[in-house]
């Protein structure tokens, strides 16, 4: 297992947080001229590994060497000096500065100690052109860019440092498919130039397509490194979760038990418009049905879910709940109308990270557990306990801060707080993003159970396989409207892709 000719080499590296072991006795090396994929569930230690490599964290034990010389980074800038550059999952851009400022933030061209803005602008244009983003004006403020463009600026920033080791942590998760292709091309070129790329992603296809070496991590340990093609996909998954998985998705009901002719659907949307992002959305979700929202990023899915949950102002069109007209004026009003939303970003929109698990679960539930203005402690404790049991949240004490949980368990808390209200309509905005395989399966099963219990579920996901596996029907959105409904036989990956690009299935075939 010991490799000696690595550009960067870790030997026996461990990292502890208090009593928790995040990384345990890891040997790892990365080589020039390769794209090296790192796989593992959440909490497997991938993030800790790259934070140690890039100088954000220090190792508690063990040695790290670069070019054969021992190093001990205390800050990211020390790692950058050695050519190790990381593109983090959490964007490292400052929104109020311009694109050019951000690309050269830590090492701008200077003239007499002051930043040379013209030279900086020129250099920014060059770097942006390298990643085919010439359309981005270097003077634009980053806050005015879309998430996908920001991620590309992030990549430009990393490239501008001429890295020898480039680490991409879920760097493609926010990109549009066009930009993903650009990044693939860029990585291949960097590999040819002798750069060592470390690539972390939860998307198996991406890893398969791109990487020539793969390393699997589990529970803070380096399980195995192998070259692409050595193991099959299911063998890799087995290594990641340490056990066999029988079925990826829970079975769908064979015959659709939703009778579309009898009675009104649980949720019916007619001609919903908002600003220039929603352009007349028609959609309905019956009780007991999981309806997926598919399509490319930025086609109005997020806005649709926010509009249904009363977050957007000035929405035109009709929303009906069980045949009754309903105006989503605020999340509070929607909560009363038995609608729930699991938002896109659990860390900033779903949870109060510093508050306890119990406080987070109870937050929407206080009216239900109070007598008059006073909370009934027994009923509150009961709700918390039921939530933890129902979603199998792994914790010993509901009183601890939710930020101590892993990503998957945090997401379960977000879902749990809404399920305790027993909502009839459940809106899910990419609930499995950045979550490990095991938890994903639990969430799929939960969704199906809820549907079987008569709930209406509207489910947005960026993962087509997930949509096909979970949903009874998928509505594909393009440019602010639903362009196609797919179900049963017609629900295939090809159909979703062609509908996403708004080309007819016949044309694509």
């Amino acid at each position, binding site marked *: 297992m010991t490799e000696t000719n690595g550009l960067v080499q870790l030997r026996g590296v461990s990292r502890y947080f208090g009593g928790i072991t995040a990384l345990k006795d890891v040997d790892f090396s990365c080589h020039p001229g390769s794209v090296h994929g790192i796989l593992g569930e959440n909490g497997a230690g991938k993030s800790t590994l790259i934070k140690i490599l890039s100088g*954000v964290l220090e190792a508690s034990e063990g040695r790290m060497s670069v070019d054969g010389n021992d190093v001990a980074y205390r*800050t*990211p*800038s020390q790692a*950058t000096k050695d050519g190790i550059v990381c593109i*983090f999952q*959490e*964007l*490292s*851009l*400052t*929104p*109020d*500065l311009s694109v050019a*400022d951000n690309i050269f*933030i*830590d090492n*701008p061209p*200077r003239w007499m*100690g*002051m*930043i040379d*803005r013209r030279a900086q602008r020129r250099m920014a244009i060059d770097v942006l052109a390298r990643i085919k983003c010439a359309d981005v004006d270097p003077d634009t*403020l980053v806050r005015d860019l879309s998430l996908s463009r920001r991620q590309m600026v992030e990549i430009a*920033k990393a490239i501008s440092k001429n890295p020898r080791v480039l680490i991409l942590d879920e760097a493609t998760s926010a990109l549009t498919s066009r930009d993903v292709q650009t990044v693939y091309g860029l990585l291949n070129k960097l590999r040819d130039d002798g750069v060592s790329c470390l690539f972390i992603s939860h998307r198996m296809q991406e890893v398969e397509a791109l990487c020539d070496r793969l390393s699997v991590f589990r529970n803070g340990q380096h399980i195995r490194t192998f070259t692409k093609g050595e193991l099959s996909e299911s063998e890799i998954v087995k290594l990641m979760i340490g056990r066999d998985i029988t079925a990826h998705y829970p079975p769908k009901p064979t015959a659709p038990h939703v009778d579309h002719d009898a009675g009104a659907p649980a949720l019916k949307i007619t001609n919903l418009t*908002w*600003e220039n992002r929603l352009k007349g959305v028609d959609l309905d979700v019956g009780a007991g049905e999981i309806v997926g929202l598919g399509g490319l990023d930025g086609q109005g899915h997020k*806005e649709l879910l*926010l509009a249904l949950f009363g*977050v*957007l*102002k*000035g929405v035109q069109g009709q929303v009906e709940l069980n045949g009754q007209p309903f105006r989503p004026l605020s999340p509070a009003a929607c909560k009363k109308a038995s609608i729930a939303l699991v938002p896109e970003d659990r860390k900033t*929109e779903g949870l109060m990270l510093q508050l306890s698990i119990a406080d987070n679960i109870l937050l929407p539930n206080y009216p239900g557990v109070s007598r008059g203005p006073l909370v009934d402690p027994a009923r509150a404790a009961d709700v918390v306990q039921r939530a933890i049991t129902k979603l199998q949240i792994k914790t010993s004490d509901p009183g601890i801060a939710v930020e101590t949980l892993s990503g998957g368990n945090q997401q379960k808390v977000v879902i749990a707080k809404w399920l305790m209200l027993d909502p009839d309509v459940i809106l899910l905005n990419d609930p499995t993003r950045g979550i490990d395989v095991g938890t994903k399966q639990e969430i799929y099963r939960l969704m199906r159970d809820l549907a079987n219990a008569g709930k209406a579920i509207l489910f947005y996901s960026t993962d087509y396989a997930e949509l096909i596996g979970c949903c009874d029907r998928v509505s594909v959105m393009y440019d602010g409207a639903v362009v196609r409904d797919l179900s049963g036989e017609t629900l295939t990956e090809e159909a979703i892709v062609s509908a996403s690009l708004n080309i007819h299935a016949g044309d694509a075939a």
Partner: protein
Amino acid sequence: MIDKLRTLVLRNGGFSAALAMFLVFFISYQMLHPRGFSTAVFIQNANESVAIGFVAIAQTIPVLLGGLDLSVGAVMTLANTIASHLVTGTPLQMVLGMIATLLIGSAFGLMNGLIVVYGRIQPIIATLATGAIAIGLALLIRPSPGGEIDPDLNWALTNAVFDMAETFGFADNGNAAWLQPIANIPVPLIIILVVGVGVWLPFKRTVTGRTIYAIGSSEGAAYMSGLPVARAKIAAFTMAGFFASCGGLYLAIQTSSGNADISQAGAYTLNSIAAVVLGGTSLLGGIGGAIGSLIGAGILRVISFYFRILSIDPLLQPLIEGLVLLGAVSLGALRTFRVKNMMELFR
């Protein structure tokens, strides 16, 4: 060209609004003034605006970080009392006294920065406490108002350029032809522009200066990008101490005395925050600049000048000041009603 100007105005919305507001207030003040525009009144106005101008610049820099410095008024007062002892004697002694005053003020700011960075105490609370310490020191240095500032210096720095030339005997006692175009400009205006703008604009262009903006915009991103976060924070508070002591020094020269007045210190601190906000700097950090704050301070000052020329009951001054402040920030806040996605409000 027009397009460029348009984007510039839109991107600096707060600043443009502040500038427009200041010009409206100032021009109508001059028009309403019974004696019309006169150098004497202009000089007097400039004199009374220097201290608050410096303190507003001082406050801006920690605010850009996303913090606040509640000690700026107190540091100004401390510098004021120190200057009232030191700025006297021979010209060389006076210059050394001024330098010492500014050094002590900057050192106090440095201490604020060190406490915030290495003590990990929130700026607002740390500076609340160090502000009390500064006031205590000021009271020890000057238990009752007084002091001995060189009268020539006072005269030279609180009047027009001509008077300064006359006092110090350069440019043919102020009669040289080349001096005439600027002879009537008030010296205090030149001081604040030269020191304020001359220090601020280059500083903003350094990596440390830009790091301050980056921290205010997103501290995590600044750290991840390998920026010198600790150094920038310490620099920001040190600069605040420097500018606050500039204000105190000028106040000492202007009033020829030092006065450790607690309520005055508090008023300067609060007015500095108001000036920063009026000048278009976001209290959340990352957006704005010292020039805007200077204009904000100007707005606050012009409002108080109105009471001299209009027959408004001076008792109403705090009421009007408060209403103008609330009105100005409320106007700026009207955009919240145009926000269509409520989540944007919480960022």
